């Protein structure tokens, strides 16, 4: 009943409910329908507020429908100017101020140490003192997930030689394409060089076949010509960073192995060519050509290969990307053999058992074939 002369009170309906405090009949509860509205709208608002960050990640991951959606959402938020919230947080945190490696800054940190004398000396392959059991040599092996199995083998085998003190340092990460994810040059300067390893064995890059963002926030499509120019620049800067002022550090830069069928990694030959090319003018970097050891006579991927004892074994894990333990052992002995050509390591037990080492007939290529820019 309504009092005479008064309008009937109308219950507020629809969107007004969104602004009224809830009075749940049971403590801490809400209806499933209201939860759906709250979650849907919260998720939608978060996607809009976060559009720039989502686009940044999407740009790096590659093309496709996700990237198209991310671009569309980001352009909407640009117009609406609602990306300021996330961008302000990033700015306050000092994050995502461009994804370019600040190698120049890192290089400046080393500039004092790099005297003219050192520069002259560095034009030669570093001449390292021969390690002995009483004075073992510090050797560091690091890289991405491929280095996990290879590095574990390498650590075990170098330890067993009696003349090396190995350190394994792998990070599930990209190489040089996504320094915002893991910054290898920074890691090398901050965490690796202070331990003063005499030999560094580096192996990363298998995940680098992805788009990059340059200093102007422009997306460089993977393996396009501008991408290669930028990637080459990063490789060159990292190699320069590896130069020791006293020329007492040798780096074995291992190219990524060929990847098998069904893998998403692409362009390993392109990356190898860039590494090899940049290493040619830097004697402190010795490029190690992985391909002959993990491919057939045509340099095509081979998952099963014979070792020196003639027994065929599986070199790779089921994903056709990562090494098996056997593959890691084979790779390790090949790298040790390469080190042996540059440093006198005869004081150690450096002869591979035939069941672990590659057939002696396998040798690295003296020159890598040039690649076509833009070809995946």
């Amino acid at each position, binding site marked *: 009943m309504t009092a005479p002369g008064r309008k009937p009170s109308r219950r507020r309906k629809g969107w007004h409910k969104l602004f009224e405090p809830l009075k749940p009949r049971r403590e801490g509860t809400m209806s499933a329908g209201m939860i*759906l509205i*709250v979650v849907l709208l919260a998720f939608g*608002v978060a996607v809009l507020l976060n559009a720039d960050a989502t686009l940044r990640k999407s740009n790096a991951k590659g093309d496709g429908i996700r990237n198209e959606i991310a671009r569309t959402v980001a352009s909407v938020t640009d117009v609406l100017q609602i990306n300021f919230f996330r961008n302000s947080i990033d700015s306050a945190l000092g994050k995502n101020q461009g994804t370019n490696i600040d190698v120049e800054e890192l290089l400046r940190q080393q500039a004092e140490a790099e005297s003219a004398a050192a520069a002259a000396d560095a034009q030669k392959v570093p001449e390292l003192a021969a390690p002995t059991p009483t004075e073992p040599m510090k050797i560091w092996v690091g890289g991405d997930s491929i280095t996990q199995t290879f590095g574990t083998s390498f650590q075990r085998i170098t330890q067993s030689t009696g003349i090396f003190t190995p350190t394994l*340092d792998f990070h599930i990460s990209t190489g040089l394409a996504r320094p915002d994810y893991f910054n290898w040059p920074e890691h090398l300067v901050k965490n690796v060089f202070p*331990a003063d390893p005499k030999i560094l064995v580096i192996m990363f890059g298998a995940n680098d076949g992805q788009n990059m963002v340059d200093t102007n926030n422009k997306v460089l499509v993977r393996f396009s010509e501008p991408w290669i120019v930028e990637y080459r620049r990063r490789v060159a800067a990292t190699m320069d960073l590896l130069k020791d002022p006293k020329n007492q550090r040798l780096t074995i830069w291992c190219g990524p192995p060929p990847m098998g069928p069904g893998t998403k990694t692409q362009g390993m030959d392109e990356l190898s060519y860039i590494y090899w090319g940049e290493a040619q003018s830097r004697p402190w970097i010795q490029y190690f050509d992985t391909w002959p050891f993990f491919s057939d006579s045509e340099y095509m991927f081979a998952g099963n290969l014979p070792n020196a004892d003639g027994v065929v074994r599986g070199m790779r*894990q089921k*994903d056709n990307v990562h090494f098996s*333990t056997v593959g890691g052992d084979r790779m390790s002995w090949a790298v040790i053999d390469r080190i042996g050509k540059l440093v006198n390591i005869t004081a150690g037990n450096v002869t591979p058992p035939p069941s672990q080492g590659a057939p002696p007939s396998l040798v690295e290529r003296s020159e890598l074939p040039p690649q076509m820019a833009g070809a995946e």
Partner: protein
Amino acid sequence: MLFPTIDFGIFFLVVFTVSWLLRPHRIAWRWFILAASCVFYGWWDWNYLMLLFLSIGLNWFLGLMIARALSPEGDRTNASRWLVRIAVIANLGILGYFKYFDFFVSTISERLRSIGITVDGPMLNIVLPIGISFFTFQAMSYVIDIGRGQWRKPLNFLDFAVYLSFFAHLVAGPIVRASEFAPQLDETPDPRYVRSGEAFMLIFRGMVKKVVISSYLATQIVDPVFANPDSYGPAAVLLAIYAYAIQIYADFSGYTDIAIGIALLLGIRFPQNFDSPYIALSLQDFWNRWHMTLSRWLRDYLYIPLGGNRGSKSMMYRNLFLVMIIGGLWHGANWTFVVWGALHGGYLIAERVVREKWKGHELGLPQVMVKSMQWFLVFNFVCFAWVFFRAQSIDGAFTLLSRLFASSGSTAGVSLLLVFVIVASVASQFVPQRFPQKAEVWFATWAPALQIAALAGGLVLIDALGPEGIAPFIYFQF
């Protein structure tokens, strides 16, 4: 599919909507949840769905056979005992094949190599199927419970498939028992009263723990120091050890918080898996608070069948030690996990011996001081054991520990913020449960628009504070 991703957000919105629409239709709901769980698991590798269904089919069939083999009164018979043994062996066989085969082959090869015999055993080199340890343990608990006569009526195939594959607990627990899950399948929760306050808080808290705290500690100090301990000095190493204790707690309990919150939004309640473990005053107390569903599993299906507290003290200690070693090995195929388990087994035995010896003795110190000392010892014992859990090898663990006494070394990564995060994370565990519970109830009274703003702002903040990309949860590998 990882929880804190846009992919999962979209997936969950669809599942949540359809699930509540289908909830009154019990069979349709079950088929839908099973399909959703397959999509969730298949997102990593569709091939491993076959393994999941092998486990479902095998355990459902054996459960049925075991139930039929029991006496009419539900007592065990010779046939039921044999069938339980077959079920346990089959489950352990599958787990062993995928998880431990390479470990045993490489260990034997290494031993033979050390005595001059070179034998290259056949290595499988297969990627460990995600969550295999969790769903295998759940399946084993089901068949063993039936064999014990605790389940008179085995689940039908669909119910069992939903139980074992339910996406919220599939890949990293909690280890939910059929007796906890199955009765909820027959209930029809009221869609007007979904525990949103608790669920939102759990999900939000879990994401902060995983995306912000765990990731920060991992990248800031834990990963660099554990990868390269030789370079670091005592301060960095000590902080890395404490940071790892927080990282693994934040990572794992963060996952279970999200899992419990998600299940709650769908009207399913999971058991609690963590209860502020770092406030424990004894090691026994720690294990009552850490990974509680695994502790219960080990107690009921291993410790008690081994003899438990029955028999002599030496037998009890043996049982305790064995259970902890097997618990360690459950976490992974590496000797580091065995050492971690052995350390905890040793701690628990030592604690019991000391407690026996000190019974009736008083230190004469204020209670607060005694409790503080107990807390300090337990926390540091646990942190010490974590070193072996995290290290890549036993040698690596000793190298790291030796750096605690080094005279020099890098302090890279050490900062006031890091110390604050570690201290605040430990301190937060002392906050009484009633405060977050009150906050949950309060949050549910907020106007929906305010809840939307808070949740959206929270998501953006978490994404901004976290690293680019989400690392897999640590416990996915177990």
